[in-house]
């Protein structure tokens, strides 16, 4: 099975100096997913982290690395996005553009949250086997790489949008009322 090698953020809209993402979907294919996954694995290792996550600003988990068995990743993704959204709201009230890094220290585990570009959140959970300094350093590197991947993706998406192409094996192409009814049985 061949999967189209593009990552498509359709309909980016510019308003002032910020990128508005209203009404655009995130479509991810194998190729980009693997690149992102590799990058997260590397960060997980080099930062000595317990777990590493990538979350969409709207609360959807994109990818993760490390031991996620005992973690409710879906809830974590949603709450992280809520956290970033709330602090972003506070930032704007103070006349700041955004707080790009959040850090919460616990008794055992710590969580480091940072923004990559305009719409992705990078989360690192670590304990005393690592340190804030190391995590910050490694996160900075990873963020640069991820930002580049997402930049490529955006320009590809814009191109694809102009060409108006649909994915080769879209699950929606032949979706029927019956398919949808079956979901609610």
């Amino acid at each position, binding site marked *: 099975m061949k999967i189209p090698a593009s990552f498509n953020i359709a309909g980016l809209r510019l308003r002032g100096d910020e990128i508005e993402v*209203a009404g655009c979907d*995130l479509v991810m294919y194998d190729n980009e*997913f693997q690149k992102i996954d590799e990058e997260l694995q590397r960060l997980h290792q080099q930062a000595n982290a317990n777990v590493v996550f990538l979350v969409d600003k709207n609360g959807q988990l994109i990818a993760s690395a490390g031991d996620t068995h005992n973690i409710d990743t879906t809830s974590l993704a949603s709450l992280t996005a809520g956290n970033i959204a709330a602090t972003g*709201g506070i930032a704007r009230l103070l006349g700041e553009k955004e707080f790009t890094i959040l850090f919460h220290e616990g008794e055992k585990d710590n969580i480091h949250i940072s923004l990559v570009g305009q719409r992705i959140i990078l989360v690192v959970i670590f304990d005393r086997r690592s340190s804030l300094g190391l995590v910050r350093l490694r996160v900075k590197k990873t963020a640069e790489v991820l930002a580049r991947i997402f930049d490529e993706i955006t320009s590809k998406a814009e191109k694809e949008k102009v060409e108006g192409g649909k994915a080769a094996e879209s699950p*929606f192409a032949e979706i029927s009322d019956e398919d*949808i009814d079956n979901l609610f049985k």
Partner: protein
Amino acid sequence: MSFINYSSREINCKIVYYGPGLCGKTTNLQFIYKKTNPEQKGKLISLATESERTLFFDFLPLALGDIRGFKVRFHLYTVPGQVFYAASRKLILKGVDGVIFVADSQIERMEANMESLEDLRINLAEQGYAVEKLPYAVQYNKRDISHIAPVEEMNKLLNVNSVQWFEGVATAGVGVFETLKGVAKQVLLELKKHY
């Protein structure tokens, strides 16, 4: 904003329950949570005050099943209804794929319903959405109470575009899945148009 992952074969969509304080949004989610199989749902997260009023949002991830080999997930959110939580409501609407407006059928809550609907319209517009263009349905909740407005009247006040509407008794589960299904269907059909 849906997230379609061809690599893990998942489709994720976000649906927000909107409406005035105490209209029954959280109750809708609680009923869905109660009636769904354990393997289909995540935790129901409620960021609430000590008096159980929603503070930031409720969140329930639902994995309903497969369509054409893709796992379909809906992330359900509610907003806090009280007027002073306006800032939070805006945040939760970010990236929404579909909205369910829950109206309180009690006559004395009609003004609160209309205010909330206007608030929704403004908040969506700020993000470049129009209610008319979004997958959207209305639920007239609390039909079990005696002092309520007739549906025809509520339609006139709260549903000028004649969108899909449902009568509900969220505490007993009446209309809860019907409403969710109505909007979920619209969301998926909307995706079909684009992909």
